[in-house]
């Protein structure tokens, strides 16, 4: 049975650049049902004082996925492979965002993920991987800190 690769504890991925594309951001906003125009309409966002459409509260997860795809495309090891995740047994346990500043369409951000560690629960029926990703903008600094726990269903 596949287990998390606990040797990956403490590893930090090299920063991956991701462009926050307007079309992709608006598609996401519409899919989650956003009706506030700051998330879907660039003109309305500018009228509200933003440079372009604003990323919704959970858009950090999309940028994280984009970084993983980009890592694979460029021959690197994405985070799920790094920790040895088995997609058939994988569950999402916790997701937490700490916001330091807004993300807008047109931004180029970089993402770096640290494997904080692993733990066991329910008498070994579950194992947890604890991850932390920082999304940073070159001029505006850290924008979002993401803390995520992934779970393997065992047995």
């Amino acid at each position, binding site marked *: 049975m596949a287990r998390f690769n606990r040797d990956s504890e403490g590893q930090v991925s090299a920063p991956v650049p991701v462009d926050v594309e307007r079309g992709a951001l608006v598609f996401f906003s519409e899919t989650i*049902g956003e009706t*506030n125009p700051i998330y879907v309409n660039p003109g309305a966002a500018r009228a509200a004082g933003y440079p372009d459409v604003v990323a*919704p*509260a959970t858009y950090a997860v999309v940028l994280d996925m984009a970084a993983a795809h980009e890592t694979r495309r460029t021959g690197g090891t994405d985070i799920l492979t790094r920790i040895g995740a088995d997609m058939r047994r994988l569950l999402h346990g916790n997701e937490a965002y700490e*916001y330091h500043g807004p993300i807008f369409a047109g931004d180029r951000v970089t993402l770096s993920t640290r494997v904080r560690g692993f733990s066991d629960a329910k008498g070994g029926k579950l194992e947890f991987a604890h991850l932390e990703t920082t999304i940073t903008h070159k001029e505006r600094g850290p924008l979002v800190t993401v803390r995520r726990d992934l779970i393997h269903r065992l047995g």
Partner: protein
Amino acid sequence: MTHPSTAQVGDRLHEHRFGPITRTTLALYAGASQDHNPIHVDTDFAAKAGLDDVFAHGMLSMAQLGRLVSDWAGQDNLCNLSTRFTAITPVGATVTCTGEVIERSRRDRETMLKIDLKATIDDGTVTLTGSALVRAA
């Protein structure tokens, strides 16, 4: 509805509903979120994993909790948002999102509100629990 500037402990946010979540919703969310985990869209894969059917992305429900809070307090006032995924959300479910102010405090020169969050599906199962910290601007 209470405005964040005057909200007190015990005040509830307007309930927000999303759904019913169809397979189309999940296909679109898989594309839009770039989360291509087949467990959410591919019934053959789900069967091989020992499940009866695909199930919704937990993050789709967290996005609804994000909408609940940002609609009320404004995205710029959102400082923290966190959730724990306590049960899977099946295809066909409607998610009801609720929030309650559980703490009003001062941080630096600002008034902060802690919001208790919950997502519940049709049969009463709580699928997500969480909290948010917002500036009471």
